[in-house]
């Protein structure tokens, strides 16, 4: 009959939709992690900036690049740290918007999945009656 085929179709639809939902949820969790990292780094950079501001002009600043400790200019170091901070804040904002989109998509997918499930249930109920 048409109903078993329709039922199978609906079930396939349900599977695809469920996969999409899973993917979106993974994206959201990844987004969360990246956001966390960036937030921590941002905090650290702000601390560094504070300390650098407290330094006098003649203090020696070194930057650890791999195994090498490189002497740096205080002004240069300051500038670098500030740029990093700006970059990271921008990244965080971008991630926020992406997260928002992902969440919206997730909600819509969830609704679609529910709808498909309901259709399946109604079909099955109809079949049972018949």
């Amino acid at each position, binding site marked *: 009959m048409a109903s078993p085929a329709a039922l199978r179709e609906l079930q396939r639809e349900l599977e695809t939709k469920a996969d999409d939902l899973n993917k979106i949820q993974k994206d959201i969790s990844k987004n969360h992690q990246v956001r966390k990292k960036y937030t921590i780094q941002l905090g650290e*950079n702000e601390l560094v900036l504070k300390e*650098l501001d407290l330094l006098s002009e003649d203090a020696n*600043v070194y930057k650890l690049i791999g195994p090498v400790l490189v002497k740096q200019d205080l002004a240069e170091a300051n500038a670098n740290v500030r740029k990093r901070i700006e970059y990271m804040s921008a990244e965080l904002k971008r991630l926020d918007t992406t997260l928002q989109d992902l969440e919206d998509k997730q909600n819509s997918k969830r609704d679609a999945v529910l709808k498909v499930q309901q259709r399946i249930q109604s079909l099955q109920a109809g079949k049972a009656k018949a």
Partner: protein
Amino acid sequence: MEEAAKKGRVTPLASLFPVEEAQKAVRRVHETLSEKESELDRFRGFISDNTNLINLVQKLPEGLHHNIMVPFGKAAFFPGRLIHTNEFLVLLGEGYHVERTSKQTVEILKRRGKALQSQVESLKATMQDLKAEASFFGITASEAAEGLVEIREDYVEENFTERESQSGPPKEHPPSFSEADKVKVAVEDEEYSCMVSRLDELEKAEYEAGYGNETHEDIENVAVSDEEYARMMSRLDELEKEELEAEFVNERDEDNAKLAVNDEKYAHMIARLDEIEKEPETECGNERDEDEKIKADFDQSSDQISLDKINRFSEEYQSRKLLEQTKDKKSATEETLDKRDTQKDLTDRLNCTGLTVQSRPKEEMSHGKGLVHGIMKSTPLEKALVLPEVKENVQAASSLRSEAPLQDSKPGFDSRKAFTGSIIERAHNMQTSSSQQAATSSQSTVTQPSKPVSRFKMQRR
């Protein structure tokens, strides 16, 4: 009428907060709490490391150089010397190091320590919130498991005349559940209002006859009251019959209605009786709140006899209620009826039974109120009585509804039911405490039955 205000919704707490879910919530909160605790431990470790480092940094510049064992690779050391003892490369973060002296390093480290402390504080605050949440969940879970019920009713501002009429038939239906109750209460209230109006008339007559001379007034009013007396006697007989019939019925509603009517009439009867017989002042020995209140009110007016009567009424009423509750209803009513003739015996009985009433301040309140109303209705007392009544009403108004459930449960109930009544009190009390949304009537319950409820709480626990 007020019945509309009494429509309530009973919701078992278990339905609002399913037991399993509440327990799960408690567990979840506990998990988060433990996570936060581990973080707190980490922070504490950091802080202790920081302090150690500060100490070391302060100690190093004490010598020009130190002989130390220098770590070499993962598992080797070799002897060496530590020179430049005042020069430190401090890691600021993000791969940035800065050359600092010992003092400057210490400053940096101290600032770091402060930052750590502030983080610890915020974490502790979060943990406090979590703990509060956990305790709330725990309480809700246990309450839901106990099967407590939340009763909500609409709060309706009621004027005091209505309150009077409600308190006269001292049984109030619990914020409840059946229309029948409300109908009966309506009936009672109508009767009561009639009596009140009649009583007012009588009072006016008495008042006009002369304020200070109670005895004369009483005598004068005896003639007037004889008719009423006869009427009241018949009414009292009816009441007794109804009570006896309703004695073992396990329906609060009926009992309440009947007993309310009975109590009204009975109160009338007693009041009239005492008035007519002009019983001298007798002290009951029981000191009840309402009595005291009545006394206070009466002290303001110089109506000592009325005071005595009211005391007696209250006592008798209370004793009556108690007797009912202890399954001696029949004998009690009989006794009281018999004793009506002999004033002294009555007083004695009141004293005896009254003494047993001491632990029921709530009842007393209701009884006193009812009795006061009875007095008002039935006896041509001075207007001063109106004052105490009104005052009592005002005082009792807030607790009216609270008394209602009590009164409902008490009158016409057997001793076993008395216990049920107490449990109801507690439930009512618990509901108010737990739901926090109960109507003011329920809220007032909390304040009212503090004594009996706590007692029963202890019994139960």
